[in-house]
């Protein structure tokens, strides 16, 4: 058993455990903190996948900036613990059943998936996942999606301002 596999096991199990805590924790603060740890362990998995840049972004942007905002919002809204969990209704049971059904289908599918061919030449291996390689492909061949993302960010910004306006 090599070290990479062992690390993956640790990161994967911890990601799942913290993700489970996010949805089961009663207090919103605990939920948010569990989300932070989910992001950290996911970043570890990204590193194992050679996606160093994505891992750094994950820690900086999600675990850092976005989670701070989450905590601010929770504090500003002064949310208490969830008072009660609600009774199981037909919709909830059906929703839960279909969620677990989807999970089962995905587990069986991914379990039966054969190893996918990793076609990576030595040259690509040297630059894969680096900032330089990502920057180069973003501004050359991936120009159209890149420009579309800038449109998306502008729309999200304008939309957030419109929704947050006190009165129109």
């Amino acid at each position, binding site marked *: 058993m090599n070290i990479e596999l062992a690390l993956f096991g640790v990161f994967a199990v911890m990601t799942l455990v913290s993700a489970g805590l996010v949805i089961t924790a009663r207090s919103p603060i605990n939920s948010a903190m569990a989300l932070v740890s989910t992001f950290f362990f996911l970043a570890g998995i990204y590193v194992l996948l050679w996606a160093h840049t994505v891992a750094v972004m994950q820690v900086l942007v999600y675990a850092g900036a976005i989670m701070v905002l989450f905590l601010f919002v929770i504090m500003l809204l002064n949310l208490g613990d969830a008072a009660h969990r609600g009774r199981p209704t037909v919709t909830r049971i059906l929703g839960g059943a279909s969620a677990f059904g989807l999970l089962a*289908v*995905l587990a*069986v*599918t*991914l379990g*039966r*998936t*054969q190893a*996918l*061919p990793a*076609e990576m030449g030595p040259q690509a291996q040297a630059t894969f996942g680096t900032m330089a390689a990502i920057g*180069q492909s973003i501004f*050359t*061949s*991936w*120009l*159209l*999606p890149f420009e*579309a*993302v800038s*449109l*998306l960010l*502008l*729309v*999200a910004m*304008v*939309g*957030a*301002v*419109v*929704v947050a306006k006190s009165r*129109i």
Partner: protein
Amino acid sequence: MTLPNLTLADFLPLLPAIIMVVAASVLLLSEVFLSATASRGYQAVLTVVAAAASGAVAVGLMFEPPQEVFLGFGVLDPFSSFLTLVVSVGLGLAALSAVGFLRKRGAERGEFYALMLFASAGMSLLAMSSEFITIFINIEVLSIATYALTAYLRRGTRPSEAGFKYFILGAFSSAVLLYGTALLYGATGTTKLNDMVVPLQQALSTNPALVYVGAVLIAAGFAFKVAAVPFHMWTPDVYEGAPTPVTALMSAGVKAAAFASLVRVFLTVGKGMDPKLPLMLFATLALLTMVAGNLMAIPQRNVKRMLAYSSIAHAGYLLLGVAALFVTAPGEHFRVLSASSLSGGTPLDVARSDALRGILYYLLAYTFSAVGAFAMVSALERREDEEKGTAWDLERFAGLAQRRPGWAFAMAAFMLSLGGIPPTVGFMSKLVIFQAAIDVGLVGLTIVAVLSSAAGAYYYLRVVVYMFMHPVPEGAQPLERNWGTEAALVISTVAVILLGILPGHVTDWLAQAGTLFGQ
């Protein structure tokens, strides 16, 4: 380092979207210099001009040969240009109907029109995207703009509920779509549709389950966007809670763009698959959506909500056309209706390209009829009745023929068109889709479609009965006129009737638009 060779021709298909984005930026920047009470009449005019300009460019682009642009991230084909035209029509009419609506509420702001333009730019780009990440980003552009528009007037609980519901469920469906995309990428190693055909064949022999699960998840994501049953739960609440001009844009533009992308994705992903699977998938969705949409619309007395359910039903008829695209072995009733073949190819190819034309024609027809109907709803509703929930009651239409004969005539035309009754464009477009479906052998499904659209005629004609045969209610408020709404009504009415009686030219023109790159 190798630079890709991008030429002006690569940017040409983006021109309609660029026009919309530039107009939106002008609106946003000019808004800064206006006081709260300044006159904002120019904003709707600028939006309509931008919509007309991008529609005109789209018509010009329709005569370009189908080609890949941006290294396969997008395609320029008559199909995408036609969709851009449909989106521009929807945008222009919705913006016209927004003038009076916003002014009555003192809510006219540049951001509203800018977000409408951004949403339409996203729709136009989505229609031409042929790579999964680009598709996803453009879906998000149009979705986020419409989430914000839905919550634009947050007075009272309904708009807040609508905006929140749309946002949460929309984000969830986007995640489902993205997960399906990731599985397909894992199986094929590419996200470009045009490069996917060969690796897909290999993946289907080594990892078939991965491809099928990925395809089903992608279909579920799109089914949410087009409001197909059983992914329709959000539609009535969101359509009712959103400002009426936004509902018009959602029912026309979002649906058209999502259908365009759905067709483009599945015509590629479905290749090499057992053709029964996509056929079964879309036939089931079509059946559920047609029947449930019409049945749920029948008891509605709230016209806006009724139109929301009717938009679900119309998604069902469109899905019938999509299902017809995946028939490879026709039944014994093969080609009973149309005997002539327009172009070369086997009869099945001809019938399938008929189905594609039918989808495009139907989207154009639905845009004119539904946006017109929503413009009429926005002209009759009053802000004070919204909290009571009576703003859109059938009673508001009672006796409209005596008070405003022109409006009643326009609304009657839209209702007949939505119900598929001649001499309107709604009848012709249903005819094209149903004929194509019968030609490929989907006879049973088409019979269900005809029966359910006959059931639909009940609730459409009820509005007409209220307008023409019921007396004006006591104490009815005066009806305010507005140039924008009336312009939208006139344009839609003329189009609904003209396209209904001059179908020959339109179908010839559409025969060309029914070409997709790589098909």
